[in-house]
Structure formats: C-alpha cells, structure tokens
C-alpha cells in the first residue's frame, strides 16, 4: 500500500459532491477491487464491496459504512461573468471568500469565490461575513462561454491540496469523511492476511451530508447482523472549552449511547485493548449525526457501533486529523471483524 498521507491525498482531493459522488467512487473502487471478492454500486450511488468470510454458509455479515460524499455548493444562477450559489450540505459561509473551487460543468472549471477589495469597503463591511446573496464564483470566463459550459444545478466542490502539518497531522478538505473511507480501505488490506469468519461488507455511502441517505438504503439491501459506521468527530482545538472534543493523535473514539448496541461497544473496546490500540470513549447522548443513526433503524433494527476520528475545523477547507488516528481506526475495525465468532449475535441480557 501507498503511505497513509498519499492515500489520504488521493481520497480527499478527488471531488464527490453530495449526490454526484462518481469521481471519488471510481477512485475508491480502484483501491477496493483488489481487496474484495465482489463490488458494485447501488441505486443511490453507494459503493458496496464484499469480502467473504471463512465460516460455513449461510454466514452472518458485518457492514462497515463510511460516507464518500462531501459538502459543496450548487449553482443557482449566472449573473454577468459570475455564478450565484447556494450551499450543498452544511457548507460554512464563514470560509467562503477567496476560496478556490472546481465548478463541475460540461468540464471541470477552476474557479474562486470573489470578494470586494478592502479599499472600497467600510470598516464594518470588512468584518461582515458574506451573506449567500453576496457570494459569487468567478471562473475567469466571459458570460457567453460561462453560459455554454455551466447550468443551474451544477455542483461545485472545494479545490484544496492536502498538506502535512507537524506531528503527523494532515490538513485539507473532505477529510470528513474520506479519512474514514481510508480507514475502511486499510482494514480491507489488513484482512487479506487475517482470518475472519463473518462476511465483511465495506460500504462507501452516498449522500450522508443531506440525511444519511446512502446508509439507510444500503443497510436495507445488505441486512447485516452488525454495522459499524466510521466518521469524524470534533477534535480539540484552540478555541473550545474542551467539552465534547477529542485530542488528535490519541486514537479514534468509540461511541456509546442510545444509537449503539452495548455489546457492539463492548466488543469494540475489547478489540482495541487486545490490539493495543489507544481509543477515546465518546458519549453521544442522542442522535450521532452519522450513518449509524440511519442504519440502526433499517428493517427490523440493526445492532450498530461507531468509530470516529478526531478532526479539527469540521466542514472547513482546513479539516485537520492525525494520520495515526486514521490508521488506528482501520486496525480497530479489522481487529473487531476478526474477533467475531461464527455463532456470535449481539443480544440483550433479558432477551427471550
């Protein structure tokens, strides 16, 4: 395998706006195909790959879900030489001015989000966060050419190179959630040399950022016996009080709360301990806001767990994570899978 940084670079720099995930999906499929027995794309655009387990059929199955879509912008109009836009998913408008983007028109077009020069603005205007009707994308093309190449409804993604910071941190765009897609990829690679009795479905889910749509539909299709979602969580940064955030470089989190089956949580912790992987317990009081929330209530209900990678500056083009945490999340997932006995099923103590 390539280095974790290079893989993360490939995965994060590729575009995959919500509902138009084809480019990143093809890249992930290329990496997964040599590691799995079957692979296909479902009706919503989720990529579903299967590694057969070694147990006797019919085998139970584990589903690991990590979303491949990313937030972006959508073209809502063309005005003079500029594009009007609205958010696609939870785009943060505090970071828009001056941002480099790719407009997915007839062909990919480089663009930047324009800003008025400070020389003509009042002191108050210079501090104002731009409202959506003041946000315009400049492609350097004149109106006639722009109209020929771009239509209302085209999607726009952030164009940002992944960079290495000190202490094994990496910063860029779409680490939410390509960091987890990479962790699943690393788990698939590990599983080539380790026995697992259960079938293992790796799913790169589509449309998480608009309501975990790909997770809901793929969990229905696969009807797994256990599902583990992988996502990012809030990393500790300079401007928070520490509550509800997790240190970078101290391992992935294992989530606990109503969204998660206690025996799945227990086994994730046991796998982390057995593999000597540091982890951080993450209490989630209600909805986790991740694929796990949708998967848990698929069909008659699915025992679900969640592994999260601490990430600073979520939904900003400077999302920052620890490469080691990504690797550990992959090892934790693999360690969890290999420890599933053929006859294990999560159950409640008082279950009849």
């Amino acid at each position: 395998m390539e280095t974790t940084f290079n893989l993360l670079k490939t995965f994060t720099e590729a575009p995959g706006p919500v509902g138009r995930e084809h480019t990143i999906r093809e890249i992930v499929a290329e990496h997964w195909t040599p590691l799995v027995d079957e692979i296909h794309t479902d009706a919503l655009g989720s990529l579903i790959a299967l590694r057969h387990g070694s147990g006797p059929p019919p085998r139970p199955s584990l589903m690991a879900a990590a979303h491949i879509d990313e937030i972006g912008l959508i073209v809502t109009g063309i005005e003079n030489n500029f594009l009007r836009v609205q958010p696609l998913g939870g785009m943060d408008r505090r970071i828009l001015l001056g941002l480099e983007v790719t407009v997915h028109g007839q062909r990919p077009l480089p663009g930047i989000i324009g800003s008025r020069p400070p020389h003509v603005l009042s002191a108050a205007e210079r501090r104002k966060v731009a409202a959506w009707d003041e946000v315009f994308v400049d492609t350097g093309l004149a109106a006639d050419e722009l109209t020929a190449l771009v239509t209302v409804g085209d999607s726009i993604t952030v164009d940002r190179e992944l960079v290495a910071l000190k202490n094994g941190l990496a910063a860029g765009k779409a680490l939410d959630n390509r960091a987890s897609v990479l962790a699943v990829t690393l788990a698939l690679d590990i599983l080539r040399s380790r026995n697992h009795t259960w079938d293992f479905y790796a799913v790169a889910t589509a449309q998480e950022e608009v309501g975990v749509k790909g997770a809901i539909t793929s969990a229905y299709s696969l009807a797994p016996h256990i599902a583990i979602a992988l996502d990012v969580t809030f990393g500790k940064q300079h401007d928070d009080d520490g509550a509800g955030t997790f240190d970078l470089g101290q391992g992935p989190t294992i989530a606990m709360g109503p969204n998660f089956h206690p025996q799945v949580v227990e086994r994730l912790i046991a796998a982390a301990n057995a593999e000597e992987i540091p982890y951080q317990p993450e209490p989630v009081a209600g909805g986790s806001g991740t694929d796990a929330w949708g998967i848990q209530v698929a069909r008659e209900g699915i025992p679900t767990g969640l592994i999260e990678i601490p990430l600073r500056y979520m939904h900003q083009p400077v999302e920052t994570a620890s490469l080691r945490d990504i690797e550990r999340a992959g090892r934790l997932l693999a360690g969890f899978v290999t420890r599933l006995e053929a006859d294990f099923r999560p159950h409640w103590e008082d279950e009849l």
Partner: protein
Amino acid sequence: MNDVRHDPLITTLQTLADLTGVSGDETKVRRAIKPLVENHVDTLRVDALGNLITYKRGTAENPLRVLVTAHMDEVGFMVTGHTGEGGLRVAAVGSIPERLLPGTHVWVGQEPLAGVIGLQAIHRLHGESFPQAAPIEDLVVDIGAKNKEEAQEAAPLGTVITFATRCREMGAVLTGKAFDDRAGCAILVALLQGERLPCDLYGVFTVQEEVGLRGARVAAYAVEPDVGFVLEGTLVDDLPKHEKDVSPTTELGKGPAITVMDRSYITPPRLLSHVLKTAAVESIPCQLKQPGISGTEAGGIHPARGGVPAITIAVPCRYIHSPRAVLHPNDLANTLRLVRASIARLTPETLAFT
C-alpha cells in the same frame, strides 16, 4: 489569450507571485529578480531599506532621468505570540480584511512550513448567527505543534506568513497571490530586459509599499529623477452588488488603469495627457481608475527633494489583498507597452509647466 506558458512576462509573474515577500522581508523576491535583470542593466545595488536599484543608461545626449518603481512586498502576517496548545497568534502586515482568513492554508516563514487557519466547527455553534467575522486576535495559525515550546522553535516571533497560493491559469485569466505588486515587478523586469531607451532608466524594485510607501520615498530621494512612473496591480470591484451605480473602479481586460488622483497624490495634467496621448497614438487600450481610492508609490515619489512629477499605471486585478487575485494577461502586456511607449516619447517639454 496568448499561450501563457511561452510568454516570458507571465512566466516571470508566476515565478515572483509564488514567493513569500511580506513587507520588511522582501529578500526572497529581490534574489529572484536580480538574475533576471543583471545582464540587462549597467549598474545595480541594494540600498539601506532593501530596495533593488538598477540603472540602464539612455541613448540621448542629455537624457532625462526616469524612475520606474514596482514594489516587491505583499500584504501578509507576522507571528506575534504562541498559545499554550502550540498555535501561532498573528497580526496583519498591511491591509487584509479579517473575513478572508478562516479556512485558508498559509505558508509560515521562508522554508516554508504549512499552516492552517480554522474556526470552531459550525455544528458546535448551535444555530448561533455570525454576522461578523472573528477578529484576528481570536484566530491562530495551526502548524500542528504540540505545545508552546515546539511552536516557538518552529515559528519564532516576527516570522512572516503568506497565503499558500500558487499562480495558475483559470479560464481566460491568471490567478495567484501578491499580484499587487508582482505584476508591476514582472513588467519592470521586462522593461529592463528590453531595448535601451533614450532616457536614463532607473528601475527600482521597492520594499514596504504596503506599510506606507516607505521604499519608494527613499528611492526617489536617492535617484533624484525628472519623472516617476509607478507600476501597480490595482483593484477591480466588479462583483454584482445590491447597490446601484457603484463604480467597478477599473475593469478587467480593458487595458492599463491610469491614476488621475488617489488618496496619496494627484497626477500632473501634462504627464497625464502625455500618457493618454501615447495610448491613443500607439492604439493601446487603457482606462482611467476611479479617482480617490487607495494609495500608490507616486504618493511617496512626488514630494521627493524639490518635487517630482509622477504617475501610476496599473494592471487591473480582481480580489487584491485576498488569498487569490485575478488578472487578464492582455492587461499585463498592454501595461508594459504603454509604460515603455510613454517613456520613449518623453521630452523635457512634456514635463514642464507652461
């Protein structure tokens, strides 16, 4: 558009725009310019402030002394402190609106080291509205340092920081950082590389424009010119707006922008009409910049010694003082043509008040 990969003017701009040269720390830019011009000028030296002063002898008998300046420095940041968690506190060098900073990648120091500026995740603001951008005092540059000591070692107090932006093509235009004023620097390099002119040409690559026209002021004193030309990258304000009748200041692709008056000086009428007439005679497109906005080095040159007639000719740039500006390559080429022709056609009579 020309094939930009083979246009030396654009190649020079790309080389210079990608360098870090925040006001007061222009060494890297100066070192890149020197080899481009040294075989084309008669003398060159670096003065006490860091200006690169070049001299190219004229062909006329009693040549006029013509000063042409372009500033090497760019707006950026400086490290002013270190947080306990290893973040860098910064101050702006020159005018950069705070609302442009969140979400940017930056280059810290001259190595450079990668850094990012991020905010509290929007999810954690719980519906809080944010009409105002965070003040720069509340931001940190994150280089991934673990603690204060590591941050201090990697980026000591005073380290300069620029936006991590590489110059590239985009549609029919070029985008990059520091076009204000590496665009002017690229044009001055080309002017010096060209044929000798009748006048004595003093091409000065100046420092510290963005913090108060400091380099141009001392260069004008030292050179003691008969006339000064200032090459700039100036603003275009052409995004659609709510307000009606707001001037775009200048327009992209409409040729060099000539200053009649800005906050720092007024162009003498004879010099202004000389340049406009030159543009007409040579069929070079040009435009007048909306008066009264921003300041340029002409403001530092015109009061030098007993006074110097001066004029600013600029390449229109969208989004100057932001992480990524935009210019049209034709404007770059036409600015070079106009300044060269205007200097070639100068006579003592052009400059005299009647």
